């Protein structure tokens, strides 16, 4: 199994190198092929893993002087998340093939090698991060993903996008100091970088390590006070936003924190309080910031911020002893990846066909392009948490888990109520835009839209299906 996991990390990386070396015209195909291969590897891995009874396994890859520097671990959570991030990476590669061409109304483009090279590298880095069992490994892939994201956000090379890219990089880099601290403290206390050692730390050290990781996680997952890079990162090409800022990179934060909690053997309550309180504050802030947004992608960016807050809320609640909240957070990570990717890709398809992504200009999408209309509705409802779409199921678990532990902690009850209100609020807001955008007579921009390329259609349909199925997959997988 380790071979497959390694393959899923190395294949895209090799792909990136090949893309950099081969002519521009081949970059598209190469990117898609390698992402596809990695996905295939992971699917086989997932199959073998579940057939083998889902027994977690760890493998050291690089050791030095008896200390594990880099190791990869296969367990239920990592396989699930890896399948999502790599699989979506593959979908995005396909979509990008259609999106980045001269027919794009918003950003006509010839595909530069840079795009697929960094995208491939990013996929590899994400897989690496997901499977990594050492803090150092996480830190390394964390930073690599940061660089790739920087390169991809600034892809269009406009001053604004370059500025946004630098901002994203710097802010996440500052936050990554948390991971530096965590790794250092861990190493100095235990002489190992293995995540599993967190459980053996003294209470104080554990608190420091977890809080430090939490800070890094906030940075990557765009939580207050590090959130400001994400809305600006919408300068990226839309498939990139979909992948990095919905499915994968922003999840890194949640994921590393989840991993730390998993191996912490019971985290101090302080960590739980910090995590939940900040999550709630971000939740409210993100919601308020929905209101003035007209740019669809910016709206989605804020929505991503709040959805990530739900995950942090779940993780924070799990500190108080709720396994259900933890599973909910992981499932939400998985579900949200599909739903938000779909939503971003709809935004991308809209700007591809109409040349704008300003919501006020987009009306009557359904009659012009039923697929986009349906996808829009599905994505919005999934994000808003309406069954049978996936968002509901994981949010439900988070809340259920929360109420489970809130009885003993009145403050948590308050936070949960705020979160519930927020969920109603964001539901209202998305419903409003669904009502505005999807039904009715097409607006000028929409009426003049060009058709959606086939590759993009296929990806959208796949994601619509996943937006319904993913929660069941996650639920079955996580047990």
């Amino acid at each position: 199994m380790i071979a497959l996991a390694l393959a899923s990390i190395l294949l895209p990386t090799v792909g990136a190198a090949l893309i950099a070396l081969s002519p521009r015209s081949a970059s598209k195909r190469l990117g898609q092929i390698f992402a596809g291969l990695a996905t295939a590897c992971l699917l086989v891995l997932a199959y073998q893993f579940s057939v083998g009874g889902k027994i977690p396994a760890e493998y050291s890859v690089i050791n030095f002087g008896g200390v594990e520097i880099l190791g990869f671990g296969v367990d239920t959570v990592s396989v699930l998340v890896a399948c999502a991030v790599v699989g979506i990476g593959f979908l995005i590669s396909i979509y990008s093939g259609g999106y980045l061409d001269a027919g794009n109304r918003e950003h006509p483009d010839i595909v530069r090698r840079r795009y697929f090279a960094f995208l491939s590298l990013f996929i590899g880095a994400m897989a690496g991060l997901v499977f990594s069992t050492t803090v150092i490994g996480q830190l390394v892939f964390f930073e690599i993903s940061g660089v790739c994201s920087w390169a991809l956000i600034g892809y269009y090379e406009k001053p604004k996008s370059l500025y946004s890219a630098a901002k994203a990089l710097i802010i996440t880099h500052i936050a990554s100091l948390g991971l530096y601290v965590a790794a250092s403290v861990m190493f100095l206390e235990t002489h190992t970088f293995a995540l599993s050692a967190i459980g053996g730390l003294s209470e104080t050290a554990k608190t420091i390590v977890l809080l430090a990781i939490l800070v890094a996680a906030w940075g990557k997952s765009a939580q207050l006070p590090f959130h400001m890079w994400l809305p600006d990162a919408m300068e990226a090409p839309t498939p990139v936003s979909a992948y990095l800022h919905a499915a994968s990179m922003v999840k890194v934060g949640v994921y590393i924190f989840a991993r730390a909690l998993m191996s912490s053997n019971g985290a101090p309550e302080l960590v739980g309080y910090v995590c939940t309180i900040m999550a709630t504050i971000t939740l409210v802030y993100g919601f308020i910031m929905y209101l003035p947004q007209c740019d669809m992608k910016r709206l989605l960016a804020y929505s991503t911020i709040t959805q990530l807050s739900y995950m942090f809320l779940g993780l924070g609640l799990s500190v108080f002893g709720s396994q259900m909240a933890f599973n909910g957070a992981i499932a939400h990570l998985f579900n949200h990846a599909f739903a938000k990717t779909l939503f971003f890709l709809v935004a991308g398809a809209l700007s591809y066909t109409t040349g704008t992504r300003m919501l006020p200009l987009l009306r009557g999408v359904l009659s012009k392009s039923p697929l986009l209309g349906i996808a829009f509705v599905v994505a919005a409802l999934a994000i808003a948490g309406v069954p049978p779409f996936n968002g509901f199921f994981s949010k439900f678990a988070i809340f259920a888990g929360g109420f489970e532990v809130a009885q003993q902690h009145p403050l948590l009850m308050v936070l949960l109520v705020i979160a519930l209100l927020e969920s109603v609020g964001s539901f209202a807001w998305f419903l409003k835009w669904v009502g505005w955008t999807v039904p009715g007579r097409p607006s000028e921009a929409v009426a003049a839209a060009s058709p959606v390329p086939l590759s993009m259609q296929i990806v959208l349909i796949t994601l619509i299906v996943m937006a319904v199925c993913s929660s069941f997959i996650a639920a079955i997988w996580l047990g």
Partner: protein
Amino acid sequence: MTPIQLLCASLACSIVAAFGSLLLSRAENWAISFAGLGGLVAAVLGGVAGASVLSGAPLVLDVAGPFSFAHFIIRLDALSGLMVLVISTLAAVASIYSFSYVREYGGRGVGPMGFFFNLFVASMVLVVVADNAFWFLVFFEMMSLASYFLVIFDQDEEAVSAGFIYFLVAHAGSVAIMAGFFLMANAAGSLDFAAFRATHPSALVASIVFVLSLLGFGAKAGMIPLHVWLPRAHPAAPSHASALMSGVMIKIGVFGILKVSVDLLGGDVLWWGIAVLALGAISSVLGVIYALAEHDIKRLLAYHSVENIGIIMLGIGTGMIGIATHHPLVAMLGMLAGLYHLINHAIFKGLLFLGAGAVIFRMHTKDMDKMGGLARTMPWTSACFLVGALAISAIPPLNGFVSEWFTYQALFAAALDGTFLVQFATPIAATALALTGALAVMCFVKAYGEMFSGLPRSKKAEQTTEVPAPMIIGMVLLAAACVGLGLAAPLVVPVIGGIAAAILHMPPASFANGVMVLPGDPAHTLLSTPLLAVLLVGLATVPLAISAAFSGSRANRRQAAEPWACGYLPDAHMTVTAHSFAQPIRMFFAPLYAVRRTAAAASEGIERQFVKLVSLARRGEPMLDRALVGPSISFVGGVGKRLQILQSGALSTYCLYIVAALAILLLITLR
């Protein structure tokens, strides 16, 4: 087949119909037929399933499902069986009706309509049979979702905005319900309703759960003040869907209140009953008053739904008072009244919506002021609508009368003995019911008169023709049901009484021909609708017979001439319009209408605050950015620029730096 299997088959049918319709959406006629037929079969199967458990032990199906925290459990007991039966009945009729009616929507997506319609029915059925909080919520939301798409089907501004409010209120309600369920689950340690039933949470938690579910389900039921969505959403949906929404879906709200407060929580807190009673009274009175002021037929019907929900809640509330005060008679009577009215309202409101739909099918307008004289062109529709109108106006011997009569009985029974609070509340409620009944009559006199009698007030009204057979069949079936449920009350009452008893965990009461005998005073509960019918028919036919017998001699002296209208020929403009008809009432109840204005003003105020919040957010969004990122960059740049002065380019300065560094370090060292 066991009822559970029947139910599953019914659900499967619904889903097949739904997806079939979607897949066939290119071939519209096929889609319509497939959706209708599938819906009909599903409804019949479901109806049989529901009917077969009305008097029997609960049946439970427990499937693990993918979610570890919640098993997928179906529980078919008397109450849910009743609900399934009601849903199925109306769904069957609506399916029949849809064969013709949906053609109206040709080219506008009949495939998806069939999809959502069938999904809507299936999710309603699942809501009532789900026996796990999680799945309950899932289906509750799916029900809202499916109906949301039906509401916005016209895709115009009004429909979309109505749909928005509808779905928002429903979702907010479901969140409240969810919170309540979570609190329960905490006490019970599981999300299964079976576990809920077995636990007794503390009084505070129980009350919080009750309030949350009252809010949540009340919103769904359209009880005042959570009714705002109802008069907008129901008119917007296609009529066969409106019939289901008004006829059944809002009942699920009532069902939920009943389920949570009585079935799950035991319901032995007095103020719960009083609260339900009070809200019911308010809903019924205000509902009918608002209905009076409408001239849009579907809005009018929608407000009547608010009214009737109020009436049902009066019954349920009384029943809850009975439970809390340990008066089995009151409890039983209240439940009986509530459930009976629930069924009845489903039938006649479905009928009325279908009737209205039929009219709209031909008229393409919902404005009653533009109709008139349709009785001549659309006799069947007119007749059915009349039956419905009479039923909703509680005219004996139709079904509405029976259930309202039981409601009165329950209220009086409760008023007879009990605490002061009960003795104070129930008479007021009874008065409210009386007022409601009177105004309802007036309202339907107006509605029927406006639409079907008099002269046509528009060209279209003159040119109307009767609607196609499937629609008529649907309406006739329901009209027959109205009559049947009225006349057959003695047969129906024991069944419903049995359900009420099952809810209350009491032994089924014994019933004799029209007389319900309970441990109480039988004099209060004497009712025989067949007798009433005979009397009423007699009252009408005896004078007619007399007149017929003696009129033969005068017939040939009869002259036909234009009616006298102060010298003018009567024309359509002279007819009383919906507006003018209601004018006295509007004057009389001006303060109550003012409530609506205040509410509107308040909502405007909220909207202003919201706009402020938006602009605040707009200004606030870049603020953090400006406060953190910008200053940091300019700080770094500024410091850098200042530090550049150090690098002045002058060699002697550089040498001095070295000397200074040495001096300082030496000073530190030798300190």
